[in-house]
């Protein structure tokens, strides 16, 4: 497997260094703790929003640090929870009189680290709360998690709480919004190929040339089933049906619809999937209020895509529409 790589052990730090150099006015990099934070942070007049997770899901989460979204992200190594002291030191560094909200995707290792960081930071008088994101409908339990996994839907939770914090909401209100968005967000993914972690150098799992994994996790964890390759339209139905049935979404609902690339799929294919998903929802009387097509939460170089739906109301839609200034801007 060919990759742009120097030393696999330095993969994350070299990426973070590049990110900081590309955004000198807006981002600050603290190498000791893999910390990427807003250069003007922490803002003492707002709740600090911090996300931690393993690396390998870029742009999540280091590239969505900026005004209106995250105040900081502290990633671990590829697909590994950040070490406890990274989270603890980040929390202390991001402390604000209005409090700190730690956002975490629901994986066992991440949960333990963040729970402990919250306990220890609280003991030092920092006002800090943790919110777990679990939008994946494909399986209830998985390799690294007990309960549902957090996948690309975390983008919507981050966007909404980021906007609310920017507007000046207090910690309790920010948490209410985060929990509300998480409760109406559902996702499911399909892998066409496995991904290759830099330190491993070979594919993380075996997937035959004519096979796909339906309901795959963002670390390549098994999903609902392995199937023979099928058409794009059929794959959209495989993802959309469980999502719609799960919440459930129904006739008259207005939604945000995201087609997220998992890292190795061209944008052209993502729009092809989006078109089918949009039409399929319209047939069911579900209208798309806001659409998102591109890479939001990836799995290194995995070819594949996930669909996320968020049930909109005026409050959520308004928060999603607020401006944000983050490194993955395209202008």
């Amino acid at each position, binding site marked *: 497997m060919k990759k742009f790589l120097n030393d696999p052990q330095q993969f994350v730090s070299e990426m973070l260094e590049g990110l900081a150099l590309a955004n000198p006015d807006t981002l600050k990099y603290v190498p000791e703790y893999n910390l990427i934070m807003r250069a003007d942070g922490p803002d003492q007049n707002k709740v600090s929003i911090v996300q931690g997770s393993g690396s390998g899901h870029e742009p999540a989460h280091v590239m969505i640090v900026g005004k209106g979204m995250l105040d900081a992200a502290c990633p671990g190594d590829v697909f*590994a*929870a950040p*070490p*406890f*002291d990274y989270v*603890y030191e980040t929390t202390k560094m991001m402390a604000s009189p209005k409090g700190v909200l730690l956002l975490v995707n629901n994986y*066992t*290792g991440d949960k*333990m*680290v963040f*729970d*402990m960081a919250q*306990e*220890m930071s609280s003991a030092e008088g920092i006002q800090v709360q943790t919110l777990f994101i679990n939008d994946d409908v494909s399986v209830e339990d998985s*390799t690294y998690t*007990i309960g549902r996994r957090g996948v690309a839907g975390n983008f919507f939770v981050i966007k909404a709480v980021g906007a609310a914090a920017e507007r000046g909401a207090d910690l309790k209100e920010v948490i209410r919004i985060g929990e509300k968005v998480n409760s109406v967000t559902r996702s499911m993914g399909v892998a066409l190929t496995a991904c290759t972690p830099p330190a491993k150098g070979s594919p993380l799992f075996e997937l035959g040339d004519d096979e796909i994994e339906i309901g795959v996790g963002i670390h390549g964890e098994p999903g609902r089933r392995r199937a023979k390759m099928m058409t794009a339209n059929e794959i959209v139905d495989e993802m959309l049906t469980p999502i719609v049935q799960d919440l459930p979404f129904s006739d008259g609902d207005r939604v945000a619809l995201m087609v997220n690339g998992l890292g190795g799929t061209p944008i052209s294919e993502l729009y092809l999937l989006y078109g089918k998903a949009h039409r399929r929802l319209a047939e069911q009387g579900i209208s798309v209020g806001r659409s998102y097509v591109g890479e939001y939460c990836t799995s290194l170089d995995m070819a594949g895509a996930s669909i996320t739906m968020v049930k909109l109301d005026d409050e959520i839609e308004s928060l999603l529409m607020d401006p944000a200034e983050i490194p993955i801007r395209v202008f």
Partner: protein
Amino acid sequence: MTATDLADVEYVVHSLAQTAVDKEKEFGDLDAVVGDGDLGYSLARGFEKVLHDWDTFKRDDVATFLQQIALAISSRIGGTSGPLWGTAFLRASAAAKTVDTIDGAATVAMLRAAAEGIMARGGASMGDKTLLDALVPATDELDKQLAAGAPPAECRAAFAKTVRECADGTSTLQARRGRASYSGERSIGSPDAGAVAIAIIIENITGGWDKR
């Protein structure tokens, strides 16, 4: 709080750390039977840092000392061992804060706080085939001996004997937490690596007590 209290707690932590470093391979081999074999490595790296930083820890009182240990361990140990062992020390530290002297009753309270912390953090219950299945009954036994007025040496001996028996007894359990749980029924027949590790650690602590 007396100087003797702190010296005894220092002895316990130092003995624990030394055992974790010395037994890296043995603990790893135990874990490899049904787990992913990283227990020995994780503990050794974490407690290696404890020994390395030994002289730098603040020693204002037992609680402060234990909190520093918690931070050192969990900063270094990856996976789930870091937060679990870190939480154990953090909760023991909180329990130590509420007492004037570290006597038998305080020791039991600290052990219980540590076990409850591990339970809460890991979501594990008794019978899940974890180190709790050795640590909790041994703490109960220690509590019982203290209540009966047994001399300290007998209390320590009963504590060590029970932790070993219960660790060996985890062979009959099926793993329901941690990586070993993925092997399901295959985990029956081998003791839990964490439970055996805690037994060896406690045997070394009690065995070396008189020479501390």
